[in-house]
């Protein structure tokens, strides 16, 4: 790890306060989800220190300085105002003293109370690349934005990372059986194959020559709830719950479902896929639907609008949120100015945002400002969904599973890739005819895709 020269001459001598960062303009407080480091642990600068959850994002906060954790002032699960001190990092020289039994860490406590992560126990994060998701209100210099996920830091293989990306899997959750604990293709395929209980056959165990995994804090996995017990909602869960009920109360929800023939899109996708791959992007059905929706939003502005009291605000920008399912909840990163982006750019952006959502690397302004949302229940096999509007927006598009179905073409039965697209809209400002016009626009675009667009 490259050494970073101390930024201040007194660094290394004076204790440094670590504060709850300001994660966005409108955010006043944050909840400590998990302390990655304990009192007495030494920490490198930029090494993840704790995880927070705010109204907008969950993020890992890196340490502003190198040193030893002298004090932790906010317990896991505690919500504190922005800029309040949550920990103190002492100079590295004081390590021996700080690590002495006098300053012993608080006894481990069950973390179900307030722990937002629903992840399976994971190894202590390796020093990850500086995260742009956590601009600290402290002395830390601005950190470079990172371009991709951080799966590369786990021991795995190129193929495993590719599969993980495809299936949106956090590799750190998989137990590696390869040399030195490497996650292998078999490991990840077993993991995907429905099992968090990976095969633990002796043959798969890492050899003793491999460094033993560091002890992990006992962490009840909310991913696998224990029947007969109750658990505190995570801050994210609470937020989702409030938000959904509020939306149901606020908007006059109506749903409408359209069937779309994806033959044309499938055909173009096939011919363009390799080209996109070479350009580092994945051309998915979602890319096409997103593009079609953006075009439709432009031609039917009331769908890209909000209600404010008695007025309708027609948004100038088209900012499309994409719902991303996480193991510990749900987040909606937003593609800003989606109407000014090419299909290639959209494809790249969707993949990038989804990856960073899963690795908790989203910036606060990347989850705000949406004017319309797309959700994709189809990936889980749903024929179609009846989605709830993401307030204060006016509509939400649901994508069903694209699959081959028998349909009637020119009085003959034909097999075509078909999907149901559904829209949930706010009847306060969007009437049925308008919603259907919007959906017809999408359907038309997808069924008669102009190859020049891709």
């Amino acid at each position, binding site marked *: 790890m490259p050494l970073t020269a101390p930024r201040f001459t007194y660094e290394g001598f004076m204790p440094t306060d670590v504060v709850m960062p300001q994660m966005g303009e409108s955010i006043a407080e944050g909840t400590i989800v998990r302390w990655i480091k304990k009192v007495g642990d030494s920490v490198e600068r930029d090494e993840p220190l704790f995880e927070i959850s705010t109204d907008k994002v969950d993020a890992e906060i890196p340490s502003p300085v190198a040193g030893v954790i002298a004090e932790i002032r906010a317990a896991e699960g505690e919500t504190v105002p922005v800029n309040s001190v949550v920990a103190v990092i002492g100079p590295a020289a004081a390590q021996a003293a700080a690590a002495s039994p006098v300053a012993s860490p608080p006894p481990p406590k069950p973390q179900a109370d307030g722990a937002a992560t629903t992840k399976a126990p994971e190894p202590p994060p390796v020093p990850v690349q500086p995260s742009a998701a956590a601009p600290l209100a402290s002395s830390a210099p601005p950190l470079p934005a990172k371009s991709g996920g951080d799966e590369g830091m786990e021991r795995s*293989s*190129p*193929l*495993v990372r*590719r*599969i993980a990306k*495809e299936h949106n899997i956090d590799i750190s959750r998989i137990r590696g*059986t*390869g*040399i030195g604990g490497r996650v*292998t*293709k078999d490991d990840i395929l077993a993991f995907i194959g429905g099992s968090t209980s990976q095969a633990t056959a*002796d*043959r*798969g*165990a*890492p*050899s*003793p*020559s491999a460094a033993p995994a560091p002890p992990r804090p006992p962490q009840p996995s909310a991913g696998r709830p224990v029947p007969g017990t109750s658990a505190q909602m995570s801050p994210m869960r609470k937020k989702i719950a409030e938000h959904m009920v509020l939306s149901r109360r606020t908007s006059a929800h109506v749903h409408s479902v359209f069937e779309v023939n994806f033959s044309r899109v499938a055909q173009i996708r096939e011919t363009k*896929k*390799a*080209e996109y*791959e*070479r350009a580092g992007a994945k051309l998915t059905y979602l890319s096409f639907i997103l593009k079609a929706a953006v075009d439709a939003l432009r031609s039917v502005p009331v769908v890209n609008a909000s209600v404010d009291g008695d007025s309708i605000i027609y948004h100038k920008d088209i900012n499309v949120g994409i719902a991303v399912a996480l193991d510990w909840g749900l987040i909606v990163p937003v593609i800003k100015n989606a109407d000014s982006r090419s299909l290639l750019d959209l494809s790249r952006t969707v993949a990038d945002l989804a990856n960073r959502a899963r690795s908790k690397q989203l910036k606060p302004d990347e989850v705000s400002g949406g004017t319309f949302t797309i959700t994709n229940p189809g990936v889980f096999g749903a024929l179609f969904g009846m989605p709830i509007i993401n307030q204060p927006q006016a509509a939400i598009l649901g994508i069903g599973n694209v699959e081959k179905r028998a349909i009637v073409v020119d009085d003959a039965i034909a097999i075509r890739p078909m999907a149901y697209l559904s829209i949930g809209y706010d009847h306060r400002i969007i009437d049925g005819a308008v919603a259907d016009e919007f959906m017809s626009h999408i359907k038309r675009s997808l069924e008669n895709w102009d190859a020049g667009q891709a």
Partner: protein
Amino acid sequence: MPSEYDVIVIGAGTGGYVAAIRAAQLGLKVAVVEKQKALGGTCLLWGCIPTKALLEHAHAFKVIQNAKEWGVSLLSPSGSAAAATIDMTQVHARKDRIVTGLTKGVEFLFKKNKIDWIKGTARLTGGGGVDVFEGEKQTLHAGKEIIVATGSAPRSVPGIEIDRRRIITSDEAIHLREVPKSIAILGSGAVGVEFASIFRRFGSSVTIIELLSHLVPVEDEAVSTELEKSFRKQGITSLTGAKLTRARAGADGIDADAQLSDGTSQSIQAEYLLVATGRGPVTAGLNAEGVGLELQKGYIKVDAQYRTTVPGISAIGDVITLGPPGHPQLAHVSSAEGIIAAERIAGMETRDLNYDHVPGCTYCDPEIGSVGLTEREAQERGYDVRVGLFPFGVLGRAKMSGETEGFVKIVAEKKYDELLGVHMIGPRSTELVAEATIALQRESTVEDLIRTIHAHPTMAEAVGEAAHAAHGAAIHL
């Protein structure tokens, strides 16, 4: 009182001697029982080493035959131009020197690791006991484990009787003191096509009879087709899809009939018939069934960690079967298995071998190196397959060496860009396959091969270019 050991290895081939060394390195007291006069088994005495030595001779001869092209003049002592000829006495002398040097090397390694070589034939007696017969009987006892590594021997097909004079196996072919005027070779696996290349280069007229529709049938079909093309150019006759219906040895040669793919019959006369139809397990005198080992078609059944059905007895190498689809009989596979068995016995945790990642090298001319799935196998396993192919002939390095045949072919799948197999035929393929093997072992994608810098000018550039081709287009094509 039996001599007491931790581990007794039966057979000192590349499986057995490597297992023995590894076990000794891990602190175990090891004995190896070997009946031959030298250590090293098939690989050192009759197989890999001597055949490849002959192929190097053939290659040297090829270069000298093309002396004019290289600007080299061959002159007799009188100063007149001389034709290149091959002196088989010198060829065998050099080959034997190499073999002896290597077998002595294994003996040295045994001494260094304090491994006892017990000369004789082993017989399992149960409960960790091994009797060794040579002159008088010796009794050994393994406290931990016995590793059976008795290997394989050439075997014929029904109806063709090997007399070891005119109808011969690779064991005899390697020792032929003269260059036969003509030789028929039954079977076109590695052994068949390697001897075809050797004898053709030395000047024999060569006819290959292969039952299946292609030469080297285990290879990717594109590789087979390329070899057939090259053999045709070199004047080797390949009868594919042909069945040898009869073969009779005479005093000076053989007389045989083959039924060709079109149903017609062809009679074949040659000085020798080399039967290269495969190898069968060696368990004679071992008392395998007597101690309860499960055999399948003569092979010892083992699990993925080479444990037989009898506790305390493991088996590795050519003599084993892991069940269908069959176990590769290759020196380097036996060694890898030997290391795993030894480490497991020593109490280390080990991983199963991935038999999809076993490299195969065939030293015919042009050479073949391959690892992983062929295009057909990949399709049969349901992958959405894409391939990339790049010919060596385009490369500067190939032109310089005057070896412009062949290509590298990459078999990959589309969804994750997974590298599934790499197949090459042409100059240095047996060396180049090492890169492909590590790429598969490390679970690389095709893109990883593209992003790996391949030095210029080398034959290895073809690997990077084939990867480019799999993604759409090679740079230099």
